[in-house]
């Protein structure tokens, strides 16, 4: 192999490594973005709060119906 051919091979290997590094950095940046989005989603409490408040309101209605029934029963007695 001539010196010129050797040099050009070294350059192409170096370029390939640089491309590989850039690709690896891009992949890692993408992974961090995906990870951050997943964490945001895990911490989002909008739906669970709505479901819980709905449940609490149902219980309030139940309790109020129960106490009305109890007062009526007391009055009847």
């Amino acid at each position, binding site marked *: 192999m001539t010196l010129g051919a050797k040099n050009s091979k070294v350059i192409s290997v170096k370029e390939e490594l640089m491309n590989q590094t850039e690709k*690896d*950095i891009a992949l*890692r*940046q993408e*992974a*961090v973005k*995906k*990870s*951050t*989005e*997943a*964490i945001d*989603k*895990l*911490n989002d*409490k909008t739906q*669970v*709060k709505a*479901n*819980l*408040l709905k*449940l*609490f309101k149902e*219980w*309030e209605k139940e*309790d109020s119906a129960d106490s009305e029934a109890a007062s009526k029963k007391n009055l009847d007695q």
Partner: protein
Amino acid sequence: MTTIRSVEDIDPQLNQRFILDSNVIIQFLDKDNLYYGQVKSKIDQLFLAGVQFYYPAPALLEIKNYWRLKELHDAIQLAIDNGFNFFAKFQDYFKDVAPKRRKNNKYLNDNDVKELRAILERIHSNKGVNRWFLLCETALKGKMSAIDQTMKDSNIRYTNFGDEEIFLNGEKTEWPKWGTANNLIEKYALASNDAAILNMAFAKKIDGFISNDRDLVFAVKNGAYPSDKLFYTFLK
């Protein structure tokens, strides 16, 4: 003896491998945690610099347990904040214990949960117990699988003894041994989960361990982790 180093002093190397303790991952995931910002940004920064992070199964179980207690705490707090009149004894117990736990950057503990359930059972065996389970179901629905998915989508990889890259392609003598975990429990009285997680970081292809557990830091200071390994913490 292994030196305890600050995470700030990590000199990241490409493909350097660290096992993360469950407490670090919890702080990485929970935005309400006092250390979330610090831990999340450091782990991301090190990952971008080429470091690989791993967690074993016992860490995942601890993360799920933490989230179970957090969601139950938040659900009861939500009821109180919105003026919903829970059974008075139940609310009083919660109001007594919850601020104490939050002072330690935690939520409820297992005993608190058992006691809260028992209070409801004592007050009203049918209505109280039914409401307890409805509360749990509504607060926790889908959360455990959401944690699984978050970890899959995160930049922290799951590892186990079947992991070809870390364990199977190495010599069998390089694998962690359950005997080591037993020794950690017997010699340092570590919790079995802590010992099982640290045990994975004994593997030859793992460079070190990152933990914010003071008991573990104490044990490592006293020889629980080999001196040729790296041990880092966010703790001051």
